[in-house]
């Protein structure tokens, strides 16, 4: 009975958000295009033979960056920007009355957006493989499933981190600047611009303790067939989720007490 109700809620939310997202197809297509930085980075790496020093062949490196592109496409999170706007406009108030945490709404929004984005990401990858046919490969089913799981876990970690940041809105009104600050280490340390193996030793010694390499580098290595520690990576991802979730719960319950219903 209860699970049925939850199911219905989730399905309805997803349906509504999916039709909502389909209206903004062009917008989402543009967003997909804005994620092509990994391909430019690949161009710098291979064009200057930088990969020779880290012992990754051209083909493996290009697969890595294609996978990094895909992982990034399906783990983009913008909940803090939506929440900040809704909170400044006073839209959060009606959401709070509903018997559903508003973050489920944002969560459904993100999932729906990913479904809408999927065909565009495929088209971009298709063009990449036309120009680089030698990089085309078919991962086996088990690896594919595992990397989908790890991409989803990476999305969850980022969603939780951003939700925590979004809750800071309850205190300061403008939380998006903190998100932009956090985005910088994510950009440079997650492996989007350069694989983590290429990092100098003084960074590699501590980076695996932070959540960053598990956001893009780990799922991308997994999917592209580059060397990686599968069980270690997955357990670190789950560990981070278990660490972040109670923190989010805590800050959410503190924040809603602080909420002053701005703009209404």
């Amino acid at each position: 009975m209860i699970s049925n109700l939850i199911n219905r809620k989730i399905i309805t939310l997803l349906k509504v958000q999916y039709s909502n997202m389909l209206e903004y197809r062009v917008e989402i297509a543009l967003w997909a295009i804005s994620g092509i930085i990994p391909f430019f980075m690949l161009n710098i790496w291979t064009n200057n033979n930088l990969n020779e020093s880290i012992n990754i062949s051209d083909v493996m490196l290009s697969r890595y960056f294609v996978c990094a592109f895909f992982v990034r496409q399906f783990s983009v999170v913008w909940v803090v920007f939506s929440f900040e706007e809704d909170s400044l406009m006073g839209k959060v108030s009606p959401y709070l009355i509903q018997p559903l945490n508003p973050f489920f709404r944002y969560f459904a929004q993100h999932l729906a957006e990913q479904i809408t984005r999927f065909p565009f990401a495929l088209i971009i990858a298709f063009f990449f493989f036309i120009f680089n046919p030698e990089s085309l490969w078919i991962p086996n089913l088990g690896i594919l499933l595992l990397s989908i799981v790890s991409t989803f876990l990476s999305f969850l970690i980022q969603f939780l981190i951003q939700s925590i940041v979004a809750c800071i809105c309850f205190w300061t009104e403008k939380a998006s600047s903190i998100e932009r600050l956090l985005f910088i280490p994510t950009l440079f340390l997650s492996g989007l611009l350069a694989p983590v193996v290429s990092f100098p030793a003084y960074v590699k010694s501590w980076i695996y303790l932070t959540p960053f390499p598990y956001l893009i580098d780990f799922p991308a290595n997994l999917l592209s067939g580059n060397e990686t520690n599968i069980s270690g990576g997955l357990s670190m991802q789950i560990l981070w989720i278990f660490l972040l979730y109670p923190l989010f719960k805590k800050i959410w319950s503190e924040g809603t007490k602080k909420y002053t219903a701005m703009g209404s």
Partner: protein
Amino acid sequence: MNFKKYLKVYKKFLHTSLASELEYKTNILVDLITAILSLIGSIFLLTIFFQNNGYIGGWKFEQALIIQAIYTILNGITNTWFNPNLSEIVKHIREGTLDFVLLKPIDSQFFISLKKINPSGFLEIMLGFFLLIFCIRINQINLSLSFLTLSLITISCSICILYSLWFFISTTTIWFVKTWNATEVLRSFLYIGRFPLNSFSFSLRIFFSIFIPIAFITTIPSEVFLGLSQSWKILLEVIVATVFLITSRKFWLFALKFYSSASS
């Protein structure tokens, strides 16, 4: 054109937007930290590229730092003026408030492009200048009058091209209504301006000089600093900048004919 009137209006713009931005003082501090981290991140990325290579696309590390410095200055200018104003166009068009702008006895492009200012971008500009001065010292560049005028000309041309690109894309909102993602695409392409153009493959080099003239924005000014630039390149940049400015102006006037207001 009544120059005095515009100067007076601009002073008022400065006053009001500074007053409203300074309400969020912590935001400015967070933005400053973001700018510093982002610079550290890109220098970190450069060190990864250079860790086993002396040259990338014919540029030494010290020379590539100049590109970073110029990029940081231009990015600061984008964050101070272009980004806060031109993302506002999208809002004006969606909510129909562009009507009020058009009714004012003042040039609409002037109003839309300079209304707001984001003071945290200043700090980024200063950061870029410090790096530039440092680069001038480590590259042992002799400062002379002709060198200073040439670099000033090329950098102002870059600013003009950058402004035109932003303005161009924001103008397309009149047809597509929701294009703030288009500016995201531009942003991710501009990211390429952090690296010397020669480090990319030939086809991308052509793309980045003809379709999106990122080459003109950072590479040519940096070449001027190093004394490597031929005079035809500088002349070409001046021509490109003029063409861009004129077309963006024409395009705005053309697009306004199609503006049909919203929700009325």
